[in-house]
């Protein structure tokens, strides 16, 4: 009997799906076996991918080229990430882990800058502009949307955005009873913001449920199909 890769994958898929589903009856060794194997295999696989598609092509190959035929500047530019890699690898040892902080500091500095830039250019400004542009009557007309509808939608979006923002206002004042409360108007606006937040999270929750349900359907369907292959 020849075990094709597809058959092996199908059998494994069937088994592991069942093992995972067993969690619905309660945490059990079978589920744990499946989960731990999954964590190990996925981590090992991702590490191998990182090695083959990051470390090797971005570090070793350019480094080799630079050392063999590159200019001094290229050599220096490739030695720096090599040094950083070595410093990070030092974190394997608790004794040398302190040296790794240099590379980690570099990563954090870069990450903080990327985060700031991403927050500004990817979220803050686009979302503000998107809210403002909801009142762009010209654009609405071009999309065959009536002005009233555009204003109505834009107003709800604007109101939702503002009230939600107000909801998160942190500043407060101590009251006579010792509690901290915001100004009355802010508190009222925050209450409206709660409604919008509830709607938003509810809508997202419904989407998550739909995604999970689809995944469950796909898994159950695969189980049925696998069993059906033998009949």
């Amino acid at each position, binding site marked *: 009997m020849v075990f094709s890769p597809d058959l092996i994958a199908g059998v494994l898929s069937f088994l592991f799906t069942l093992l995972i589903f067993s969690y619905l009856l309660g945490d059990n060794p079978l589920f744990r076996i499946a989960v731990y194997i999954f964590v190990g295999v996925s981590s090992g696989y991702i590490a191998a991918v990182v090695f083959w598609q990051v470390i090797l092509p971005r570090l070793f190959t350019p480094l080799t080229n630079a050392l063999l035929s590159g200019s001094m500047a290229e050599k220096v530019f490739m030695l720096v990430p090599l040094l950083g890699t070595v410093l990070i690898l030092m974190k394997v040892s608790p004794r040398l882990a302190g040296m790794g902080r240099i590379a980690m500091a570099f990563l954090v500095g870069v990450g903080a800058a990327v985060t700031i830039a991403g927050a500004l*250019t990817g979220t803050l400004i*686009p979302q503000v502009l998107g809210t403002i542009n909801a009142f762009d009557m010209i654009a609405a007309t071009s999309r065959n949307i009536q002005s009233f509808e555009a204003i109505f939608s834009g107003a709800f979006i604007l109101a939702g955005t503002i009230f939600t923002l107000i909801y998160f206002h942190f500043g407060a004042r101590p009251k006579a009873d010792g509690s901290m409360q915001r100004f009355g108007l802010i508190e009222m606006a925050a209450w409206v913001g709660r409604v919008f937040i509830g709607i938003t999270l509810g809508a*997202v929750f419904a*989407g998550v449920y*739909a995604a999970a349900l*689809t995944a469950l359907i*796909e898994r159950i369907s695969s189980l049925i199909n696998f069993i059906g292959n033998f009949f």
Partner: protein
Amino acid sequence: MSDVIKCPVCGESNLPDQEFCRYCQSRLQPLTGTLKGADAAIKPGQVPTKKNTAELEPILPQWLRDARDSARKSAENDAAQAGRQSQESFSASSTPDLLAGLQSQAGNEEEETPDWLANITGAAPKPKKPQADSPEVRWVELGGAKDFAQEESDAEPFTPSWLEGLAPTEPQSDELTDWFQQTDNSQKSGQPEPQKPPFDTSFSAPVEPAAESGDTPDWLKKMAAESAQSNEALFDDSSKTFDAPSTDTPDWLRQMAAEAGEQTNDPNVPASDASDWFQQIAADDGSKNNNAPVISAGTFDAPSTPSSDAPDWLRSMGDFQDHPQGAVPAPGAEAAGFSEAGFGEPEAAASSAENLPEWMKDFPSIDNEQSAPGASPSWLKGDAPASSAGAELPSWLSGTQAPEQQQAPAQDEAAFGDIPGWLKAAAPQSSVYETPSAEPTPAPATLSFDSPDWLNAFKSIDTPDAPDEVSPPAFTPDSQTSENMDALFADMPDWLSNATDTSPSTSSTLPPAANAEEITPGELPSWVQAMRPVDTGSSARSSSTSLSSDQTLESRGALAGLQGVLPSVPGFAPTSKPKAYSIRLQASEEQQAHAALLEQILAAETEPVPIASFSALTTSRGLRWFLVAAVFAVLMAVLFMGTQIFPMPVGVPPEINGALQVSQSIPEGASVLVAFDYEPARAGEMEAAAAPLFNLLRQPNLTFISTNEIGSILAERFISGPLADSDKSGFQVLNLGYLPGGQMGIRAFAQNPGLTSPQLAGITSLSQFMALIIITDSPDSARMWIEQTSFTRGAIPMVVISSAQAAPMIQPYYDSQQISGLVSGLYGGAVFEQSNGGIPGITRTYWDAYSLGMLLAMVLITGGGLWNLVLGLRNRTSMAGGTK
């Protein structure tokens, strides 16, 4: 032994026999060994444990050690005098001897407790010890066993009041503590001597005359004479010391008190205090290093001087001035030297001046200045006040624990103080210790000053002790007669040990006092533990008699084992039965009510207040199983049966319509870049949503890329899965794999795809693709692709196929026309599939199950939510009621 000793302080070389560095005056020889556990303090009431005090043996001056050797040679004579004493009694009597333990010092320093030390403390020697040691030798060491026997039997009744203090009272032990500590401290300090010149001048002088005395210790005789002629300056302080003595105080003492009474600044000092200083002397002389003897010499001055009725031996002290041997050692002499002088001077009588050590030769010159006939001894008159000697006396007599060099400044301050220093020393430091001094009278009445033994002992004081500086030959057996040695050995140790033995012996049969609790607890140095006579053996007690009428044996505290230390006041006996008082509390009802209220309040305070819990909602396994059963039953049934009851959605939303138009507009064989940026968890949903769109493409040239490590595998799975049923004959697939770096990687790829991915050689711009399809389950991933490619993709259309969970966040991008179309979730896939001519695909397979699952969820959430709302309200109501 090395030829030279290198000073640990200055590094200079010194002769091996030198005790002090001749350059820096630092001590070269250790004063004592380290007493184990000396630092540790024990508390009263703690059961004493044996301590190894053998280390203290080095305290003894060299002359004592040498004397031991000579004593061995005279052992035979002494042993014959020992008579018929049993071995036990002999051993008991021998134990009090200070020098008894010296036998073992030279040879065996590991001996746990030297006998002399045990005797001082009154602790019973170990029964085996006398047996182990050769009794004969010990007899010899005793300096004449018979002497000792006589002392015990005869000397006790004659003990003067000022000697009564030698009994093992608290002060004694305290003073012993002091000098032990001094010894210890001096060891630590290293060079205590150079700081003690004042003592040299003041105390060496009285010792000197004793060197020439006969039976009666010369120095005592001279002291008597001195005192008779001395100016009162010295005794201003000392005389007052004897004001307090009882009527039993000897005349000479009374006279002394009368003479000095007016000048005494501290009339409250009891007579018994004198015994304290005597004890101090004993302690210092007998066991301490050579510093102490100097002190002892001076100590004897005070009591002897005022007494015109002094016995002969005291009167003979008047000769002191006729023998002006310099009491003051060489200025540079060290304390050790002076201490040695205290005991070493007697040796001058037996030995010629030539045999005198260097320091002794220095005395005359000083004595000449000090000793003026008819005047009080210069060492008393002038030296004491002038050089703060009188004040110094108290300092070192006070038994402070500081080393002598530390006492010197204090002594200077007290030089002209109201109370002589030595009186202060004699004064008990606490009321507890004053108690025994209150009745010193019986002892003086019976004290025999003629007691030859202890006087011989004093005589022997004059015999040269062997300071380190003193030439050893002076103490060699050849140079000393047995008599000298007897006296020598009996000098301080005898009377001291005798005295210490008395109290425990008499009190052995008495019940221990239980008043220790009233004593202020204090911490005792551990070395005192070794000296506590708690476990005094009967043998030791039998040979001693009490010097005190009080026979109470202390059982606890620092005085444990000591007897007569805290005698009850005579006559303090209850004359009548004490009145009986009821211990019952007389409280009114109101008071009791208040008390109950108070108890209630206190109880409420101490009662733990439960922390407001987080009202943790316990898990409901039943609900979970119900949900599992319901959902799985529905889904499995529908999927197994493959029903198609639920119709596919109709109507095409604008975003889906946009995607449909893009897919239809892509020309045949066009290059399409497809990003697979979703997790394997959403593979089923994403494949179902994306498959209808790919089925619309006509022989596309697909390039797969992913910012997810697993994306490339998902792409291949997509090709081999949902698209397997479609016509893939014209499909060309290039899988670029993983694009690391997140949005920066996307940005770099968008700027020059060929540079980032070598497989795309020749493609330098993203606009070279005909369309861009993003399959993602994350709004962030969609955002990254949308934003980072916005400037490079040009006019090429972008379609996003997203998970249902990400649709609400991606939708705005369609609204803002940043993307051309959006297909989200299974619903979007179903709509798209319907718009694709209705060819059944994977969405149709899932649609019934999906719809039923969604409806089931709607019902369960609604019904279950309401039910749990009721339950929650009920719980909250019940909790609120419980709180009230």
